[in-house]
């Protein structure tokens, strides 16, 4: 920008001069970069061929031969290294999604709490933010993981709730619904019920808008959400069986196991990120002009209503862009999983696979490319969101 201004202010010959100078400068930069790249690639090739180090991506099809503690997709020791990578990626996505939801909930509560008129609540929330923002996540992760482990009993002394739920230092065990043939009909029923309920809600809103009278639809909505799937469930003869966790040998088997690594990582990520989200929420709420709140009160809206209808929608526009970048850094921070043995992408692929194959360059490049892709997707979505809302802002 500075240059365009300057360029215009100079006479022709000088403009020419700058023009050529800039082209030469850029050519030089490119050349230097190309030389550097060639030099480094040359070094790698000589080093690898000299010492007979394998290279290339053929290893992705080789048998992995190791076990993974948590697999969301089918995986056995006979699967390939490439498959192991997908297992790791799925685990990264799982822990990120859970932590994003949890950190958002905690973050909003703490952020609103910091603005509370209750002195004690406000101070407690401030203390939360100041304490957790100023300590390394890695330290907090170690604390939560080993803290959680230390607090839980061994498998034979498990804390149990009825016969179906058990908690010990191997994880939380809950009954698991096992789908039988025809279960997709039930899922279809559930989605259809939700869709119908949503449609009813919209219809009621429209009626209110048009006529000023809001029809009572909540019972119909409830019916759609619950009765419809229930009916399908009955009609299909309950196509589910329950797998109950049972104490056999060393530990519980069957059911669904939530491993402590997942719990520890989720706790650390959500509690840490929530401190940042709280600050974003607070800044967002403070950014809404004071007059907006007063105007809402003057209109006779109750506090909760003015929050929900006036303040939050305006604050959200300020909150969402930085929120998205917090989500992104949470996802990247989930790579600390390697420290506590949670089998995420970095731990499985850049840890075990890298060590078994020794192909550092290929593997680290792939891992970085995957994270980069995730980042770019989120950035893209954010830009779309900003563009969509730019028109509404009075800027």
């Amino acid at each position, binding site marked *: 920008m500075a240059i365009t201004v300057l360029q215009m202010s100079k006479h022709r010959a000088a403009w020419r001069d700058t023009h050529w100078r800039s082209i030469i400068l850029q050519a030089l*930069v490119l050349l230097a970069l190309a030389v550097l790249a060639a030099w480094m690639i040359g070094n790698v090739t000589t080093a690898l061929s000299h010492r007979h180090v394998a290279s290339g991506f053929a290893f992705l099809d080789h048998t992995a031969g190791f076990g993974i503690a948590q697999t969301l997709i089918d995986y056995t020791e006979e699967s390939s290294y490439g498959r192991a990578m997908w297992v790791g990626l799925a685990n990264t996505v799982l822990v990120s999604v859970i932590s994003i939801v949890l950190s958002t909930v905690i973050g909003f509560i703490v952020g609103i709490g910091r603005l509370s008129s209750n002195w004690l609540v406000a101070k407690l929330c401030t203390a939360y933010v100041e304490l957790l923002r100023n300590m390394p996540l*890695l330290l907090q992760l170690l604390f939560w993981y080993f803290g959680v482990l230390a607090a839980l009993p061994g498998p034979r002394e498990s804390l149990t709730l009825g016969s179906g739920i058990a908690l010990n230092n191997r994880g939380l065990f809950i009954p698991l619904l096992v789908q039988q043939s025809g279960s997709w009909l039930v899922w279809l029923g559930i989605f259809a019920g939700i869709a119908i309920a949503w449609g009813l809600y919209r219809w009621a809103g429209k009626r209110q808008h048009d006529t000023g009278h809001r029809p009572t639809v909540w019972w119909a909505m409830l019916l759609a959400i619950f009765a419809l799937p229930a009916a399908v469930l009955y009609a299909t003869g309950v196509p589910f069986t329950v797998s109950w966790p049972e104490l056999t040998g060393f530990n519980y088997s069957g059911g669904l196991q939530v491993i402590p690594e997942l719990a520890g990582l989720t706790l650390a990520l959500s509690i840490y990120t929530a401190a940042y989200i709280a600050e974003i929420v607070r800044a967002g709420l403070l950014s809404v002009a004071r007059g907006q709140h007063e105007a809402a009160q003057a209109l006779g809206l109750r506090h909760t209503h003015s929050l929900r209808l006036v303040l939050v929608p305006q604050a959200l526009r300020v909150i969402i862009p930085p929120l998205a970048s917090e989500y992104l850094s949470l996802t990247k921070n989930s790579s600390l999983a390697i420290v506590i043995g949670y089998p995420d992408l970095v731990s499985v692929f850049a840890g075990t696979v890298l060590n078994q194959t020794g192909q550092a360059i290929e593997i680290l490049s792939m891992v970085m490319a995957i994270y980069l892709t995730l980042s770019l997707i989120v950035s893209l979505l954010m830009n779309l969101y900003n563009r969509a809302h730019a028109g509404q802002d009075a800027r």
Partner: protein
Amino acid sequence: MTPPVTAAPPTAFHRKRPVKKIGVLGWLHANLFSSLFNTVLTLLVLGLLVWAVPPILDWAFIDAVWHGTTREACETVGGACWPFIFQRFGQIVYGFYDEAARWRVDVVYVFGAVGLAWLMIPSLPRKGWVGAALLTLYPLVSFVLLSGGWFGLPVVSTEKWGGLLLTLVVAAVGIVASLPLGVLLALGRRSTLPVVRILSVVFIEVWRGVPMITVLFMASSMLPLFLPDGLELDKLVRALIAVALFNAAYMAEVIRGGLQALPRGQYEGAAALGFGYWQSTALIVLPQALRTVLPDIVNNMISMFKDTSLVSIIGFFDLLGVIQAGATDVDWTGPNTALTGYLFAGALYWVFCFSMSRYSASLERQLSQGDRR
């Protein structure tokens, strides 16, 4: 709380006494018990505090062990194991740095502390000179002192650096190196030269898009392969390069924010004065842009400082690494050692980061006062 009103003469304005707004009771009423909801909240929070705080204090201080020289001292007690910290204090502060040469580290610590204090205490003069010395002369002197090899100082190889020393070295190098790099990248991203702009964008987005741990892995196990035989970069140097480049990308985005916030008139004014690109950038644009984002720069430094703990994953014995290693050391392993170590490390990190965040907040206040016209 209905007051006796017998003495009050009947008046036309017969209404309840206004709620007391001053004094302890008044304060309590206004801030804690103003409504039913608030009262419930207050009680809940109080309950939470009573439930959580005393056991923590008990563990950390009352049930804790304070004296002893080996793990046996802490084995039977259910509280913090402070002798571990006392006995290992040298390692926590200096790592494995040669004991005879530790005075060199102390000199570096003292110079750094005095320099920073000078900058932060408003009444002291010549801040510009001190700041410049802190950014140029100080790293040089520290480097000479810490690594040795000059002026007859014996060499202390970087494998021996550790503890707080290593944490501060990584943080300081990250901070000092990322500022100029960040400025260049931010200017590059706003450049009109397409090659420069695209390269800057790619550089910034790639580093910001990947987790720091992969960058450190790259520095520790991939970068050496890209160097020719005979050129071996010290492992610490490689990690420092990675940290500096990684942080530069984040710094660049902060500084770009400052450049964008600058009114167009400033650029035009510089052009009207006949300044060239570099002149106007160095004399007009950057000083103002950096000033506006100074609080954000300090916040960024806090993140960098915390992120230095990640070097423990690639085998450095930084503050966290030394404590972790010490807690599973045959001499000190025990039920409460690790937790005591984490508590101590956490407190140290917290003191550093919290002071920086206070400083950043006070800068923000000063700046916003300056803007009030």
